[in-house]
Every structure is written in C-alpha cells, then in structure tokens.
C-alpha cells in the first residue's frame, strides 16, 4: 500500500484517473528537482522581474484609509503585473517547468480569463502550443479576454457541458489531459486539483507575501494586523497568506463570493456553505447536494464562480488559522466603484470582494492598525459587466 500524498490535514490527495498517475508523478519529481535548482530559480526570477514587472508595489491607500477612518490600508498591487493579475506568477513558473520537462503544449482552464491570458502569454513567450478551455457562459461574460487569448496565439475552446462555467472548464481540461499526456502540460491556475498542483501553485504565488512582508517591515517597521484577499480556488489568497502563516498575530482573511447571499442557492461561498467532499482531484470543501452532486454555483465574478476551494485553505480553516468571510455581488460592485473613485485604481471584480471586506473591517480597527489588502487583478475586463449590472449598456 502506497501512502497518500500531498495532504493538508485531511484535505488534498490525488483523486484522479489511473491514466494520469504517472503524469502527476513525473511532474512531482521534476518539481522536486527544479525547485532547488539554481539555474531554474535564476531564470524564473529574471522572468518575474524583467518580464512580469515584479516586485509589485505595496501602496499606502491614504485617501481610502482616511475616508474609512480606521486601520491603515496598504494595497499589494498584483494588478500591476504584466497581463494584469497575479496569475502570471504561477504561469511563468509552470511554463518554465513544463519547458524543462520537454513539454511543447500548454492547456489551461480559465474563469474570468485572467489565467487563460497569462497562460497564452507564457506560451507565446516560450513558443509553445496553447489551448484554453473556458465555460461558454464565461466566454460571453469576458469577451475581451477571449480576444486577448486569441491575439496571443491560443486556441479558445468554449465548454458547453454542465453549468458552462469554471468547474466545467476544469473538468474539460482533465478530459483533454487524459487524452494527450506525452507533449502536454496542464497549467492549472489555482491551488487546487490533485497533488502536486496545490503545492506548486502555492509556492509560485508565495512571492506575493514574500515581498509584502519585506515591504511592510520596511514601510512600518512591523507586520500587519490583517491580510485580506479574495478566494475562489484560492491562489492569490494563499500567496498573500503564506509567509505570514507562522506569525500568529496576523489575521488571515479570505473573502468568498457570496453571490446573492449565503442564505440563497445563488452563491459560490464554499467554506461558508459547502461540506467536505472529493472532486477535481482533491478532498476539500465543496458546494454540493445531500447525494454529493456538485451544486451549480453563482457569482457575478467569473473568477470566483467555483464550487470548491483549495485544500490548504480548507486546512487553514479547520485549524482556525485563517477566516473565510462571504461578500455579496452588491458589496463587491460597490467596492469596485469605491476604489476606482477613491484611489484611481480599478480593481478586478474578484479583488473587489476583498476590497469590500476591508471597507467593513478597517473602521472597526484603530488607526495604529495595519491591513494589507491584495488587489489580485485589474478591472478593465469587468467594466462592461459592471456597467450592465448598473443598467448601462456600453455596447462593448
């Protein structure tokens, strides 16, 4: 009997078809080698700094802080990365790893399109073939990103099965990977799926907290009191939390998409409304019915519209190290508009969920307290949808 691998407490594991087992074992072996390889790390750092524009700024949001009248708010500006979101951190790492493994083709799922755009970008840079699977509903919600991916040379496959959103795009990627393993790397976009993906993606996203920890120590001479980030699968959140996990006095707060509210069926707040289950390669919390059928979740944000959460988040929740709070569509849209007007920064609607919670949290804290708030992406892609939400048709 072999030991189950890649556990975070009771969560994680490798619940995938036998056909994929040697592929994930090969990936694990390659990653274990390259993560400590100096040349690999130098190449990756060079790409992050000179191609993606890292380190990203830690910006003191002075007007927002004064307006809310409580804790000092610093924004970790992942929206300033090349391609406009944190996704590029993980994608450059995985694409480089895939290249080293001799793979010539990248496939990926995407919800809002940010991970698809980042993957298509890396594929262009590394001269690799690229196919992106995107729920058909999301291709309509995020038409601009579909165009960007095609412009970058990727093929975009609209997924019509199930709810035609992010979870179905993940399922279709798994079906595609099982059909073509030899030359193809599945560039998974979040801290989810079978081991070793949750660990690989977390390690590549941990650059966010590695930088923000140094930056806040330099700016304030101390650690923040709270770190706030939005959670779908949870990659920007785990990246934002990771280097603070041993610092027990730093509150770690993940903001889930509550959609129309956690007391309705139109929600995607997994930790708040889901239960323990096994899906998409991992044991974790999932929105599901009493017979284990995965629930059709809903959020205004295509990037948070996922019925599960990464296994490390499930574990951080179990042990009480991180908190997970629900944020509704309405609150996120208000925060989207608020940050745009207050700081001249248009956040992604995903990130706006974190902004919304920070707006509630900051006034309850005294002025000598500090919040680090991750702006995981920029909101240009969302303008048409938010305009529609407000009843304005801008004919995009």
């Amino acid at each position, binding site marked *: 009997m072999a030991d189950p691998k890649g556990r975070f407490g009771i969560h994680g594991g490798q619940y995938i078809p036998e*056909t994929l*087992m040697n592929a994930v074992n090969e990936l694990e072996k390659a990653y274990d080698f390259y993560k400590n390889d100096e040349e690999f790390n130098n190449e990756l750092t060079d790409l992050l700094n000179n191609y993606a524009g890292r380190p990203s700024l830690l910006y003191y949001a002075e007007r927002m802080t004064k307006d809310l009248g409580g804790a000092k708010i610093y924004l970790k500006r992942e929206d300033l990365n090349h391609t406009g979101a944190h996704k590029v951190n993980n994608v450059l790492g995985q694409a480089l790893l895939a290249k080293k493994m001799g793979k010539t083709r990248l496939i990926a799922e995407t919800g809002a399109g940010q991970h698809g755009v980042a993957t298509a970008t890396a594929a262009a840079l590394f001269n690799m073939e690229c196919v992106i699977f995107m729920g058909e509903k999301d291709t309509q919600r995020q038409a601009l990103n579909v165009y960007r991916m095609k412009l970058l040379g990727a093929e975009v496959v609209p997924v019509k099965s199930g709810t035609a959103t992010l979870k179905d795009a993940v399922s279709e990627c798994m079906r595609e990977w099982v059909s*073509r*393993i030899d030359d193809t790397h599945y560039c998974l976009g979040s801290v989810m799926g079978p081991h070793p993906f949750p660990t690989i993606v977390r390690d590549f996203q941990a650059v966010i907290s590695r930088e923000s920890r140094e930056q806040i120590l330099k700016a304030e001479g101390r650690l923040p009191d709270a770190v706030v980030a939005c959670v779908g699968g949870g990659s920007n959140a785990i990246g934002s939390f990771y280097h603070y996990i041993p610092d027990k006095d730093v509150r770690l707060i993940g903001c889930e998409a509550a959609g129309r509210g956690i007391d309705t069926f139109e929600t995607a707040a997994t930790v708040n409304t889901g239960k323990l289950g*096994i899906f998409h*390669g991992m044991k974790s919390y999932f929105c599901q019915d009493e017979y284990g*059928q995965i629930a059709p979740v809903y959020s205004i944000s295509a990037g948070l519209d996922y019925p599960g959460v990464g296994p490390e988040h499930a574990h951080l929740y179990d042990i009480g190290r991180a908190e997970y709070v629900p944020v509704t569509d309405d609150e996120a849209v208000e925060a989207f508009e608020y940050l745009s007007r207050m700081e001249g920064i248009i956040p992604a609607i995903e990130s706006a969920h974190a902004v919304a919670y920070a707006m509630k949290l900051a006034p309850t804290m005294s002025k000598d307290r500090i919040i680090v708030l991750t702006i995981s992406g920029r909101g240009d892609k969302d303008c048409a949808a938010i305009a529609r939400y407000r009843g304005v048709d801008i004919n995009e």
Partner: protein
Amino acid sequence: MSKIREAFKNGKAFIPFITCGDPDLETTGKVVRAAAENGADIIELGIPFSDPTAEGPVIQAASLRALQGGVTTDKIFDFVVELRKDVSIPLVFMTYANVVFSYGTERFMKKCKEVGIDGIILPDVPFEEKEEFDSVARNYGVDMISLIAPTSADRIAMIAKEASGFIYIVSSLGVTGVRSEITTDISEIVKVIRANTDVPCAVGFGISTPEQAAKMASVSDGAIVGSAIVKLIGEHGKNAADYVGSFVNSMKTAVIK
C-alpha cells in the same frame, strides 16, 4: 471466491455498462434484464454524477438525463432490491468518489451488501487513494475493482498484486466513448498482470463492435462496453430494452468465439 471472479469461469466474459435512471429506472430495469437474458456475465450499473470527469459526451449526456429525471443514490439502492428478485448475475456499481464519500463510505458499502451489489468501480480513485474505500468495502464483501491504463507502466505489478474481483484495463488514453481503433498493446499489459495475480482482467473504453470486443477478449478475459449501449438507450429511450438485448447477444457471441 467472489461472485465476480466466478463469472469469469465460464470462458470470456461480456460486461455491459448502463446508467441508472436514464431515462428512468423502469427502463433501466428492462434494459438490465434484457442484457442478463442475452448473455451478460456481469453488469456495471452507473450511479450518475453531476461532473463525470472520466466520461466522454455520450455518458455525460446520459448522466445528465438521469439526474434531471430525479434519480438519487437511495432510489438506485431500492431499484437494486427490486432487480435482485430475478437477476442473479454479479452487479457492480460504477460511480465517482464523491457519491460514495458524501453518502458515508461505511453506510454506502453496508447498503451495497444488503441489496446485493458485488463490486464497485471508482474511476477517480487510483491505487494511492484506494485504501480509504477498499478497507470498508472489504468488510462488506464488496470487491473494489482496480483500473490499469495504457500509461500505467511500472505501476501495473503494484496494482495487480492488490486487485480483487476483476481488473479493468483501460484500452486507450482519454475518456470513455466509441473509438474506431484501439492501438494499445493490451497483451503486453496482460502479461505483466498475469505474472502478478490470477485475478481476471477485462478490457473497456472505446469498444463498440463485435469485432473489437472479440479482439480485446482474445487477449484478456473479457470485454466491457459502455458508451455504445448508453447511446442505444439515448436513441430508443423507453423502448431500448430489445435493442440492447440483441446488441448484448451479438457481443457475447463474438467474445466467446
């Protein structure tokens, strides 16, 4: 010896797969009986899952039809009780890990024993995660069927050594569904299996014609057919039993040649 292994004693086995509740359980009952009467040696009963990641479009669509028709795990257990009044061949559930896990693995396996289910196939539970389910299944005399894929390579021996019931050899890369050609060298895989266990092995994925079934059974102990049967049910709905019956008859005739 388990009932499943005994089913292989009369020569090459033919194993059809049927999605429970597609389009309704009454039809499934007729189809299962038609398959049994026409020579099926074991029947795989699919408990539909909302997001069947190992299935191609045909079984995905059947799962959706069944769930939309209101079928649930409990209704399927009740249905098996009815079936067992006159169907005696081994019955094996095929479903996904979450269906069993959310029901409660202990409660699920106990119920399997009570209603007369002989085995279970979970395509998203590989060797490394098997113990969580198998340790419970064993206690209730339910065989957990292991899968071996064209990519299994050095894993075949390890999997074969712990196999029970029968071994499900996945013929090709990819998801379930009809294929015009199967290129994997099945006899090489079978050779390694034979060196490690005497548990019988049957080949599935992509088999739709008597010729393919005969070829796959000639190098193993049997053939498994899913999508081709589910497609017939999709086409003929409530009247599918006769069509499935004659299809099973032609396939069984082909495998025992």
